[in-house]
């Protein structure tokens, strides 16, 4: 007959009578509640900011249409921005994912919108929308969102519930009596750790999912994956607490060891991995990049100054003025000149990300954070996908403008009424990356369990 149900029943009874457990759950619920509120507010503000940017293009076009109509009513000929396709304003926005309130993630490190004009450098379309990182409040404290509660605080609560579940009994002598019974130490100790840990982890997961479902209903698959992520990450911490308990013989030592493990795995290891990434693939300097781009742009401008000046007084003999044709030639040169700089910078950043992507598998905290960011749609991959798509859209708008120039086609009222081409963000596939995050968390959990199993195989003598 399996002893597991009997052991589990005892531990459940003990947990139900442990006054610390409801307190820990209450603390978690309060933290998670505030984090959902804070995250939802952040997500709403971000969505609003993106909506505002997107509305700008429509407002500009509405104003232009109004002017266009007034001028034609007066018998005047609309000109400049009202009729040239090269002056068309476009916007691209990165919409929030359904679970954006879960984590601010890396969203603030990347622009969520782009202001696109056909003649603009496709790499400069985000410049007006970089925000957040310069905010000292964010730099100082980070975002208090659910991901922060899960990655940083949940392990502390799990440690508080399990840190000395066995070592205290070694200290009191109860462990001797239990191990004197005909039960395998592995069955006894791991069952008890699992029940004790689950008593906090399962309700904490339910609270998190419920709160987020209230704040952002609808994404059931996302919520299920969130639950799976929390359970995988939490299980790792419970297993780690169990492992520590197999090596120490007093509550105090267990508390110190668990606290050190938290500090090491949640705070120091991610920092060390970031440092290792920086050593392996130093990030290119944004300042040097910006200066390089500016200098190269100015050189191209200087080289074209005469031609632009001459165009100002020249007649093109076509629908679009000579200045626009001259500018078209200039931006062709400029983009050809800047492209290697943009590529070099992007490649430098990609090298760093590639290292970070490999090293993250060493840290459960980074893996959990990455998984939560992916679920929230605030991960770097989604932000970079947006940049790629926005640049591609910028290319389309340029082709459109150039086609119209080539065809001597000017904007008409009908063009205003049909509306502009619009950017639509295509969600990148996140399944493989998310599966890698969860798989790696599972592997780390199994690794800790395997170490525990090795220790348990050494027999009862090592456990007392």
């Amino acid at each position, binding site marked *: 007959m399996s002893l597991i149900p009997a052991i589990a029943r005892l531990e459940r*009874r003990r947990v139900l009578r442990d006054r610390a457990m409801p307190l820990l759950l209450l603390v978690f619920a309060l933290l998670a509640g505030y984090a959902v509120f804070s995250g939802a507010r952040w997500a709403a503000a971000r969505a609003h900011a993106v909506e505002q940017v997107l509305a700008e293009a429509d407002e500009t076009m509405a104003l232009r249409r109004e002017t266009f109509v007034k001028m034609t009513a007066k018998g005047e000929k609309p000109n400049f921005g009202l009729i040239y396709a090269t002056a068309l304003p476009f916007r691209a926005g990165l919409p929030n994912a359904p679970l954006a309130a879960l984590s601010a993630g890396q969203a603030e490190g990347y622009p969520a919108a782009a202001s696109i004009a056909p003649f603009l450098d496709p790499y400069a379309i985000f410049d007006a929308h970089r925000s957040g990182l310069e905010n000292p409040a964010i730099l100082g404290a980070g975002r208090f969102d659910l991901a922060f509660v899960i990655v940083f605080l949940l392990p502390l609560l799990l440690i508080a519930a399990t840190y000395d579940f066995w070592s205290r009994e070694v200290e009191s002598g109860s462990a001797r009596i239990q191990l004197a019974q*005909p039960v395998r130490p592995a069955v006894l100790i791991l069952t008890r750790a699992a029940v004790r840990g689950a008593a906090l982890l399962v309700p904490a997961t339910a609270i998190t999912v419920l709160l987020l479902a209230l704040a952002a209903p609808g994404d059931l698959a996302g919520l299920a994956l969130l639950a799976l992520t929390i359970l995988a990450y939490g299980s790792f911490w419970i297993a780690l607490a169990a492992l520590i308990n197999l090596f120490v013989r007093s509550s105090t030592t267990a508390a110190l060891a668990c606290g050190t493990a938290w500090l090491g795995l949640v705070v120091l290891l991610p920092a060390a991995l970031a440092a290792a990434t920086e050593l392996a693939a130093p990030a290119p300097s944004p300042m040097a990049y910006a200066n390089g781009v500016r200098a190269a742009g100015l050189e191209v401008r200087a080289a074209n100054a005469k031609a632009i000046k001459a165009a100002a007084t020249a007649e093109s003999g076509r629908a679009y003025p000579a200045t626009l044709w001259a500018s078209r030639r200039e931006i062709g040169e400029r983009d050809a000149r800047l492209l290697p700089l943009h590529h070099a910078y992007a490649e430098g950043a990609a090298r760093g990300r590639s290292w970070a992507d490999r090293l993250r598998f060493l840290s459960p905290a980074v893996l959990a954070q990455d998984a939560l960011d992916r679920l929230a749609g605030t991960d770097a991959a989604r932000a970079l996908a947006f940049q790629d798509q926005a640049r591609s859209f910028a290319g389309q708008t340029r082709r459109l403008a150039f086609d119209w120039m080539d065809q001597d086609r000017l904007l008409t009222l009908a063009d205003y009424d049909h509306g502009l081409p619009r950017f639509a963000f295509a969600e990148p596939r996140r399944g493989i990356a998310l599966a890698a995050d969860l798989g790696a968390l599972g592997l780390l959990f199994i690794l800790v369990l395997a170490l525990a199993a090795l220790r348990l195989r050494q027999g009862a003598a090592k456990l007392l």
Partner: protein
Amino acid sequence: MLEAISLTKDFGTHRALDGLDLRVEPGEILCLLGANGAGKTTTINLFLGFLEPSSGEARVDGIDVRADPVGTKRKLLYIPEQISLFGELTGLENLEYFAALSGVEDRGPARLRLCLGHAGLARDAMDRRAAGYSKGMRQKVGLALAIAKQSRALLLDEPTSGLDPQASAEFHELIVRQRDAGAAILMVTHDLFRAREVGTRIGLMRSGRLRTMIDSADITASELEKLYLEEMKCSD
């Protein structure tokens, strides 16, 4: 039932137990006496599988403890100097848990209450949380487990140390009942008087060796005390 064959245990260069040979038959209480560090608790730990012998064998019912640590524990009951129960649980719940761990099949409340009663625990105490139990009450829960488990062998490590005389007497009475029921009992103690009173045989240990083995019927309390003191004075 309990048998040590040339049982030896070294801790580094220190030999804690040196070639111990002993047998405890069913219906017998063997009391091991000796100063601290004589090897008495090491012997118990070897029978429980808490320590690996450096050489020799500890056998329970003919089975080497190393070969089947779980199986041998099924036949044993261990009561240490301090029985530490789960304070959040009642005495009855504690017994239910340990009975489950011991593989006791019939562990319904009625039977377990009966066992606690036989062990001398007052009825009103059975449903109180064990956090408030005295040492004597905790030891009784330990004995109730022996009764519930119908253990064929008992390992007692200074079980009455720190008990008041009445509680100690009650406990020894219960031990004798277990012996009469056919259990083989190995008891480590410092209490010469009780050892002579309840023990079938008495072994004197010093520096990891069993120096003397005597039938308690062949010796008076004062003779035992004299012999013990002389033995402890001897140098190796």
